[in-house]
């Protein structure tokens, strides 16, 4: 099985390096085929491993030593257990699909080879992240995906906004990574190892405040990668990257790494329910907060990005409340339908020549039937309608909130579910229904390549049927995760809740359709609604990006300039120069003594003699005084 593990892990790397060889040369389709094939190989290996793990085994290998000094010992160790294999499956499935899809999507792009190199490198990093058997390995993957995300968001590096977004993403993630690093340090100095098995076995013996700090710092790491408030702004800006990237990285895999971390560290978080509650509360807040921003946004990809953010909030609620398997399940289901949604959006963008404003589309269902069906179904899944994947996972989270008696969280999540349904179908309605507003802009949309749609189909299938794996999945992961079942106590309450939720969601969908299905104009910012305070607040993302800009970015730049021009040049360096100048000036001024007149020199000589004698006397007197 070790062989399969290595194949699953390293074939994306091989693909990446292969594509990198052609990185600077013009498009060669072979890079796309090779990387996709290698990704598929990785997927097959993961599937074999899944099968093996289902048999109750786990695979644990230690490839080689990485760092060893003092008491520290960090190997490159990989583990395939019930949790990591689920993640591996999600990652390989989505990335295989995205790779194949990208062959079509990036067809005309000059950086075709570079793109595949980055994309496969990302998959490799992600695999390292999920398969590592220690926190340092996790951190390698953690930073690796950050790097690839940087490279892919800024893929179109000629665009200033893209590179800006890339840097923003990287730096924001770095802030969080510092937290994670500190968490790792804490673990090391308190436990003496950062291997998962050792840490989880020993963590219970630590004082509670230490565990709390560990939990907090690790979660700070998770907050960055999963774009939780207040480090969320980068995710929406990351939509500058090519759409397959958004699908793979910023929906299905990388952003869920934070959830994975919390799930993986469940023995730690189990000991600190207070931190768990904080995580859950933050998750619920982000769910609502992100959904509200999605309501008014006019950028198709950003809307989906906010929806991702919102769903990540759901996952954190589950994870924070100790329902780790539920969180992971939603992670999985979400990966499928959200990737599908993004890829569908990619098709639309292609058709609309990179137009992102859904108000400028409309009526596209006529020309893009396949995409229309897929996106609608994905939205249905996202909204959580029975029997799609979203129903099983999302409803479960609501139940968790209810069963754990966190009614506020429950209410917030319920409300968010309604909002989710509304904005999802607002998007679908605006894009595919109504009048053909795109004609105003002289665009002739066309459906994407067939093979792209075919490539998307596995995701469609999974988005529909993933819910049915629930019990198999449950049995699998509860080998490792706490196996709490979340059942509402009375049958009646359960049904009322479920049906009520469904009705509420459907109502929201219906409202969205009613409002937007027959939209016929492009808003120009003059309508009454658009000038309302609430709308403006949401439209400007609660002014948070502006706030960051004004409070952090600009002052930092200003401060840096002050540090350089005022402090470094005018104080620190000037001080050094002053000392040098004083010495120089002293020489310059005292050179008059050297007027060449021997008589004067003789006087100075005698003067020096007198001074020396005086010193001798003084020291002798002093010495005698002390000596006596």
């Amino acid at each position: 099985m070790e062989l399969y593990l290595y194949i699953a892990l390293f074939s994306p790397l091989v693909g990446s390096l292969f594509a990198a060889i052609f990185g600077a040369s013009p498009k060669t389709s072979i890079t796309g085929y090779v990387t996709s094939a290698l990704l598929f190989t990785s997927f097959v290996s993961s599937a074999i491993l899944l099968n093996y793990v289902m048999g109750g085994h786990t695979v644990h290998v230690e490839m080689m030593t990485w760092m060893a000094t003092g008491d520290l010992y960090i190997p490159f160790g990989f583990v395939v257990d019930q949790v990591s294999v689920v993640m591996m499956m999600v990652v390989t499935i989505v990335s295989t699909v995205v790779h194949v899809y990208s062959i079509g999507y990036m067809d005309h792009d000059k950086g075709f080879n570079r793109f595949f190199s980055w994309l496969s490198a990302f998959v490799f990093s992600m695999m390292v992240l999920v398969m590592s058997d220690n926190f340092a390995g996790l951190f390698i993957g953690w930073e690796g995906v950050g790097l690839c995300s940087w490279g892919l968001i800024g893929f179109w590096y000629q665009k200033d906004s893209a590179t800006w977004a890339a840097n923003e993403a990287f730096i924001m993630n770095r802030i969080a990574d510092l937290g994670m690093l500190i968490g790792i340090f804490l673990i090391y100095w308190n436990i003496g190892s950062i291997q998962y098995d050792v840490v989880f076995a020993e963590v219970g013996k630590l004082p509670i405040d230490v565990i709390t700090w560990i939990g907090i710092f690790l979660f700070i790491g998770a907050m960055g990668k999963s774009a939780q408030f207040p480090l969320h702004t980068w995710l929406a800006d990351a939509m500058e990257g090519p759409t397959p990237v958004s699908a793979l990285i910023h929906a299905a895999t990388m952003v869920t790494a934070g959830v994975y971390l919390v799930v993986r560290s469940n023995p730690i978080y189990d000991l600190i329910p207070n931190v768990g509650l904080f995580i859950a509360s933050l998750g619920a807040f982000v769910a609502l907060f992100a959904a509200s921003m999605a309501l008014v946004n006019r950028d198709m990809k950003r809307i989906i990005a906010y929806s991702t953010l919102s769903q990540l909030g759901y996952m954190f609620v589950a994870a924070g409340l100790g329902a780790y398997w539920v969180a992971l399940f939603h992670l999985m289901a979400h990966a499928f339908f959200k990737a599908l949604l993004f890829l569908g959006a990619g098709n639309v963008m292609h058709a609309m020549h990179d137009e992102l404003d859904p108000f400028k589309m409309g009526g596209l269902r006529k020309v893009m039937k396949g995409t229309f069906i897929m996106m609608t179904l994905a939205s249905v899944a996202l909204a959580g309608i029975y029997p799609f994947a979203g129903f099983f996972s999302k409803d479960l989270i609501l139940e968790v909130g209810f069963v754990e008696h966190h009614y506020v969280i429950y209410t917030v999540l319920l409300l968010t579910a309604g909002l989710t349904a509304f904005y999802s179908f607002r998007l679908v309605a605006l894009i595919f229904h109504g009048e053909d507003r795109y004609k105003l802009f002289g665009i002739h949309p066309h459906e994407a390549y067939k093979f792209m749609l075919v490539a998307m189909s596995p995701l469609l299938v999974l988005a529909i049927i993933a819910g049915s794996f629930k019990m198999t999945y449950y049995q699998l992961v509860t080998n490792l995760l706490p196996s709490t079942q979340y059942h509402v106590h009375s049958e009646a309450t359960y049904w009322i809740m479920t049906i009520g939720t469904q009705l509420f969601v459907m109502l929201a969908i219906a409202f969205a359709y009613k409002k937007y299905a027959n939209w016929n104009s492009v808003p120009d910012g003059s309508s009454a609604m658009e000038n309302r305070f609430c709308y403006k607040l949401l439209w400007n993302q609660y002014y948070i990006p502006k706030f960051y800009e004004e409070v952090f970015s600009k002052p930092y730049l200003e401060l840096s300039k002050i540090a350089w021009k005022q402090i470094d040049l005018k104080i620190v360096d000037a001080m050094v120069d002053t000392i040098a100048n004083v010495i120089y000036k002293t020489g310059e001024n005292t050179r008059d003594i050297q007027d060449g007149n021997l008589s004067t020199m003789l006087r100075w000589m005698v003067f020096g003699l007198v001074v020396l004698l005086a010193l001798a006397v003084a020291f002798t007197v002093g010495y005698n005084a002390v000596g006596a």
Partner: protein
Amino acid sequence: MEVTLTHYLVLSTVLFAIGLIGVMRRKNLLMLFFATEILLNATNIAFAAISHYIGDLSGQMFAFFIIAIAASEVAVGLGLLIVWYKRTGKIDLDQMNSMRG
């Protein structure tokens, strides 16, 4: 009325001070040379006195060598002085300022 080493040393110092004043005061090079001779002689007295009172001949040896050096100094110094005088016609210290820094 015992004459002690201190007496000699004080005498030596007084003579040395006179020489020192001469060195600083004189501008005529020849006169300056006289002053340096006084300095040397002042130290010689000190050496001889110490030699006597300690009962060690080293002091006298030093004085002896000082006299030798003083003699050579006069020979070379006067030679240079004559050269200088022939070149400039003056032996005034104030005019020797080619070493101005």
